């Protein structure tokens, strides 16, 4: 039963389904408290304490090791090394789904980071269910920024968007001077190759971020939290007093919020891994924004250009 559905009414309904011995307590009166409930409180307290400790400490795993040739950095690319075609992970995977289904649904796209983790049932209530999780390859997020010359900007923007569509991606953001697209990670390299053909590339920066450790951390914490939630729900069903039940419920609410936060973060990472982000800007990088930039000591060079030529006054 989803934790989010734990409303006060449900709670009352569940209490009414408990065996007669535990139903001796009636919420409307709230006066009869079985002697056995004191033992229950202690048990609940101990359980919560141990659960909290488990949640903090169980997320241990051995640091994964990757083959040297499977790891790419920005520096390598800038020195002329080729970015991965991601063939290793894409060849056996289905083609990306249509653009319209992609935003915000990383788990629905062709390649999902969850596949990289050893399959452990998310709803397992086995203590330490997260143990044994290990990635089979690094989890990488690709981003690129291009500065193209300021010529036929509108037409160039249209071409960039066309590249996104041809690659199975989508337009993410657009304004007068820049356009941001998202393309399937498998077609990242192909996309940037095509974008470089659109105009005069003044500057490019490609960044690869390894999120393997963060992803595994969150995944383990999520699995532990789900296991703890199951146990709390079971405990709630057996609670004998309102105080016990409220205490468990408060813990459930806190846990639910944590679970949703972790799920949201995993969805975000899934999405960023599945779709690379490419921003194409049609503004030169102004020297003023990069202090210390080399400047030639020939003033006439800085007077060249259309504004000077065409101003006849």
């Amino acid at each position, binding site marked *: 039963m989803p934790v989010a559905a734990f409303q006060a009414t449900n709670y009352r309904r569940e209490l009414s389904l408990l065996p007669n011995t535990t139903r001796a307590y009636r919420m409307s009166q709230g006066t009869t408290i079985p002697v056995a409930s004191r033992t229950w409180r202690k048990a609940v307290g101990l359980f919560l304490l141990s659960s909290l400790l488990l949640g903090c400490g169980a997320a241990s795993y051995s640091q994964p090791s990757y083959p040297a040739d499977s790891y790419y950095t920005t520096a390598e690319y800038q020195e002329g090394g080729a970015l991965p075609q991601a063939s290793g992970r894409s060849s056996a995977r289905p083609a990306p789904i249509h653009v319209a289904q992609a935003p915000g649904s990383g788990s629905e796209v062709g390649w999902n980071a969850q596949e990289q983790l050893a399959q452990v049932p998310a709803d397992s209530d086995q203590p330490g269910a997260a143990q044994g999780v290990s990635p089979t390859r690094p989890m990488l997020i690709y981003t690129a920024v291009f500065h*193209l*010359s*300021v*010529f*036929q*900007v*509108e037409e160039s923007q249209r071409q960039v968007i066309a590249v996104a569509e041809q690659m199975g991606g989508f337009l993410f953001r657009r304004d007068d001077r820049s356009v941001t697209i998202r393309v399937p990670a498998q077609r990242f390299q192909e996309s940037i190759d095509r974008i470089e053909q659109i*105009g*005069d590339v*003044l*500057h490019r920066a490609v960044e690869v971020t390894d999120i393997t450790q963060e992803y595994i951390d969150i995944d383990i914490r999520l699995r532990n939290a789900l296991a703890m939630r199951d146990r709390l729900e079971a405990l709630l069903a057996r609670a004998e007093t309102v105080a016990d039940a409220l205490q468990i419920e408060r813990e459930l609410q806190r846990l639910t919020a944590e679970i949703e936060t972790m799920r949201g973060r995993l969805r975000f990472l899934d999405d960023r891994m599945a779709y690379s982000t490419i921003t194409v800007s*049609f*503004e*030169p*990088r*102004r*020297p003023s924004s990069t202090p210390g930039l080399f400047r*030639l000591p*020939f003033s*006439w*060079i*800085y*007077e*060249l*250009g*259309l*504004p*000077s*030529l*065409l101003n*006849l006054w």
Partner: protein
Amino acid sequence: MLGLPSSRTALAIGLCSLLISACGHHFQMVTPNRFVELDDQHQYAMRATTPDGVVIGVREIDNDPQGTLEFWEEALSNHLRLSEGYALLDSIEVQAATGQSGKQLRFGRDEGERPYHYWTTLFVTDDHIFIIEAGGQSETFEPMQGAISDAISTFRID
């Protein structure tokens, strides 16, 4: 005493020739058809325009410190591309009417929402750098490209 007038004359002639040399230019170029040459163009040794805003101008700059054609071409291209955002559309070899080799860099750039063309043609001698600039809005510049190229082919370096 007889020598004085001749000294004065020689000095006067010397100064006069110096002024002509300083004020004069070391090139000649035929003004293209449909262009009108303008006077007193400050930083330009010569500038001419069409009625609809295609402009051609020539700068004559001392080659000091002395650089080669390749040096100035790269300096100019880097500045216009990287700092000003001009798109380098083409780079072609050209030759002056007097035989010197030069380089023509053809740029494009949007001003406002409109695309413009901007050509810079570079000739370099030991003493001078000659930059022939031509530019205008694409729709008016493109019909004038032939006339501009013809004018550049008449460029003579003295």
